[in-house]
């Protein structure tokens, strides 16, 4: 090889090597985001860091704007809260706590949440239930040393209520003075006579538990945000530098990669976080999240599928699966009304297939719900009778007997309704075949599994059910516009019962009444229950409500699902609660990795 050629080759090699280095440097150049803090190295960093795998990134770390589950979890650690709340599993009621007061005394063994994190010392509800007055503690400080004062709450509620900011929590302001006329009158609705007194005034009597729930929105520091105009609020750079007062503060946020929180040494709400660092890592792929839990690269993975439990626990004994629930159920929706007619003329007419309650009951009895549970969810699924969860013990009607899987009875019911087998074995009535498409959303293995069993069950009694899987956005849009005759979907319920949006007879107002089910008694029961100042006083109404739904079967309720979370055993002190996986995360501790044998 001549000298020139050798030089050329070596120059080329140098070029490629420098190109590769330059590329690496390019991708590494944004590594120092956020504040500098505790520097920890290599594997040892895991000893002081709890790693939580997330499906997606937080949208905002601002309580007024944050609307994803991840945002909610992180905001709960950074910002202070007026009250502490806890779900009492023995009654199914929410409890609210200030430093020196509780809404209700809890059953022994319950009530593990420490009220020291609350900003409120106590509250007083007026006799007419139209005013709630909080007394705030005077020793709470934002991370910059400024005191947390009642003015911060008034300022924050104005942000929550601003139509320009469009916070997803506007509904919480629905009872404040002025809201009945379309605009909250903040000067009259929220009063701050001094820094430690905060008064909320309502235009109507409000039950105490609801008043506590709606007035305990997370505050922002007014002194930090006061100069930000509402139309700049959503894209203000301050959103990337959250100023809180809770047990943790933001250390760094590399968008779509990870959020690192560091224990806030100065916090007394309730105390600095026990674990020095918490990293929320974005890992979009489910299989990879599982692999990372298995190798110990992450400590917590949510929503593990039941079919993976055995393999996971066998592969690594340092993993445990914890369950909590029941808040989520799947159902088959049947359009009760003729949607085409309703769209054309606005008239409500029974659906030609699913308009009759007897037909819907037959469909429920034709579906083998136990088989779906046994085949997929196993012990993590429970038959669902109505949309009031068995976890809400105070309201759940335990006398309801699930409709059994009984194809013979289903056939008899359909025959009584005039549906008789045609020459091809498919049921017919007045020349119309019992044939329809069951839609569901793409990307949900559980629903795919259930839909195939439903199709087989219905085919065995002479019903032709075709399956169609739609992209989630398209599916939701079709549901919202009431375009579908039958679908398989699910709901996650709130811990306060308020089902009028889903079952209300006014189809324009009840946006989520996709079936078009109408029953004036259901409307009346929901209204009567709302008027009770103590939730347990409405128990009789909710029992009747469930009996009606069980009888009318506006939809076929399939199963409740327990939420299943994978934890590394190096975490100690975690308590799962229906109100959230990370409800006592500030009390979790980590065992050092040396003790962890993989």
């Amino acid at each position, binding site marked *: 090889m001549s000298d020139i050629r050798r030089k050329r080759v070596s120059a080329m090699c140098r070029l490629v090597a420098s190109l590769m280095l330059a590329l690496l440097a390019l991708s590494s150049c944004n590594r120092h985001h956020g504040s500098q803090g505790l520097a920890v190295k290599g594997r040892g960093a895991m000893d002081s860091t709890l790693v939580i795998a997330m499906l997606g990134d937080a949208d905002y770390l601002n309580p007024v704007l944050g609307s994803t589950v991840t945002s909610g979890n992180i905001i709960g650690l950074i910002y202070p809260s007026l009250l502490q709340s806890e779900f009492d599993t023995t009654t199914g009621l929410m409890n609210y706590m200030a430093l020196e007061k509780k809404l209700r005394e809890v059953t022994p063994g319950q009530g593990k949440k420490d009220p020291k994190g609350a900003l409120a010392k106590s509250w007083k509800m007026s006799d007419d239930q139209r005013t709630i007055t909080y007394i705030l503690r005077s020793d709470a400080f934002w991370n910059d040393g400024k005191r947390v004062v009642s003015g911060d709450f008034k300022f924050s509620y104005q942000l929550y209520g601003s139509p320009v900011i469009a916070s997803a929590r506007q509904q919480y302001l629905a009872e404040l003075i002025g809201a009945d006329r379309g605009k909250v009158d903040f000067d009259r609705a929220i009063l701050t006579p001094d820094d430690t007194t905060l008064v909320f005034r309502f235009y109507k009597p409000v039950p105490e538990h609801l008043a506590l729930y709606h007035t305990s929105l997370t505050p922002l520091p007014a002194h930090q945000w006061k100069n930000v105009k509402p139309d700049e609020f959503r894209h203000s750079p301050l959103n990337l530098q959250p100023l809180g007062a809770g047990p943790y503060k933001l250390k760094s946020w590399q968008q779509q990669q990870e959020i690192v929180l560091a224990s806030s040494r100065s916090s007394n709400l309730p105390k600095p976080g026990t674990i020095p660092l918490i990293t929320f890592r974005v890992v979009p792929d489910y299989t990879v999240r599982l692999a990372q839990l298995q190798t110990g690269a992450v400590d917590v993975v949510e929503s593990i599928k039941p079919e993976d439990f055995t393999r996971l626990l066998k592969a690594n004994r340092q993993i445990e699966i914890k369950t909590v629930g029941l808040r989520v159920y799947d159902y088959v929706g049947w359009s009760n009304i003729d949607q085409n007619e309703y769209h054309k003329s606005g008239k409500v007419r029974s659906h030609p297939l699913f308009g009759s309650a007897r037909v819907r009951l037959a469909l429920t009895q034709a579906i083998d719900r136990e088989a779906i549970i046994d085949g997929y969810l196993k012990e993590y699924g429970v038959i669902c009778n109505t949309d009031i969860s068995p976890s809400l013990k105070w309201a759940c009607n335990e006398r309801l007997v699930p409709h059994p899987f009984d194809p013979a009875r289903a056939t008899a019911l359909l025959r009584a309704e005039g549906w008789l087998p045609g020459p091809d074995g498919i049921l017919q009535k007045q020349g119309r075949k019992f044939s329809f498409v069951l839609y569901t959303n793409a990307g949900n293995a559980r629903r795919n599994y259930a839909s195939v069993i439903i199709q087989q069950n219905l085919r065995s009694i002479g019903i032709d059910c075709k399956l169609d899987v739609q992209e989630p956005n398209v599916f939701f*849009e079709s549901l919202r516009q009431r375009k579908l005759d039958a679908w398989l979907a699910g709901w996650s319920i709130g811990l306060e019962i308020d089902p009028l949006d889903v079952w209300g007879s006014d189809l324009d107002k009840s946006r989520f009444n996709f079936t078009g089910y109408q029953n004036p008694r259901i409307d009346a029961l929901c209204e009567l229950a709302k008027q009770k100042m103590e939730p347990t006083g409405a128990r009789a109404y909710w029992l009747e409500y469930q009996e009606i739904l069980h009888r009318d079967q506006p939809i076929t309720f399939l199963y409740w699902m327990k939420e299943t979370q994978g934890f590394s055993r190096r975490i100690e002190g975690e308590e799962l609660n229906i109100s959230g996986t990370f409800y006592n995360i500030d009390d979790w501790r980590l065992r050092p990795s040396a003790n962890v044998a993989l």
Partner: protein
Amino acid sequence: MLIYILKRLLIAVPLIFGVLTLTFFITRLAPGDPAAFFIQPGISPNVAEQIRAQYGLNDPVPVQYVKWLANVLQGDFGRSFSRAQQPVFDVIAQALPITVTIAGLTLVANFTIGILVGIISAVRQNSFLDRFLTVTFLFFYSMPEFWFALMMIILFALKFPFFPASGLNEIGAEGFGPVEFVLDRLWHLVLPLTVLSINGAAGIARYVRGSMLEVIRQDYIRTARAKGLPEKVVIFKHALRNALLPVITLMGSSLPFIFSGALFIEVIFAFPGMGRVTVDAIFSRDYPLIIASTFVAGSLVVLGNLFADVLYAVADPRIKL
């Protein structure tokens, strides 16, 4: 040549503009609503309306188009709906370095391995080595990338935990020194780069093999051998240069890949690159971000083709532009 390049660039302007207009209407007409996330029980129905008003989605589509056009002509592609209202080019600027790193390193590996294997296969045509390489590379070529990636993770991150399963750096890497940091990043890139390189190199090897076989049968190669030139010189100097011409087209068409990202790999290995930005934008109906990604991808396809044509002219004196 300069005039030719200028001409092509001028033609590209209406072409890209047409692509953007088409994208604008397709995204607006597709079912789905950017404010759909805010339509759920417990959220006031006003919120979705307020969000739509903020995004300017309550206007008729032609009015939205005129407004969009006015903004784009001033270089303003808008703010992302789904990513905290960041300007769309800021979102792209955050994702690009990661994508460029992965794709750049992949391309270097792709072409190096692909060309080498292609040459060996062609020179040793029909030998055991040729057949072995052909079958092996076809096996990897026909394997779906996402499946291959998952198998690599199961094998090398789970069964034999040599490499990390995902992420760009180790927990606590911000405390590392620069060298440690780069090494840690390289360690994280081993699995994804292997998946992408093996898959891509297989295709290139097939091209190079075919092209080499054609070239080494030419008269001038026979002449070179007849002159008594060593085989190395014949292959690398006379044959390879000519055989690489079709590969230049591949280089040009790889340019969009460098910037648009490898979606499956980015999702599986949790890299926040361009592929994920684009697909997340599509699923969340983030119109401004979809259009900006299309703009980047469209421009690169045009530039990539132009780049390939110019390289052709540079490499082959018979081609005049």
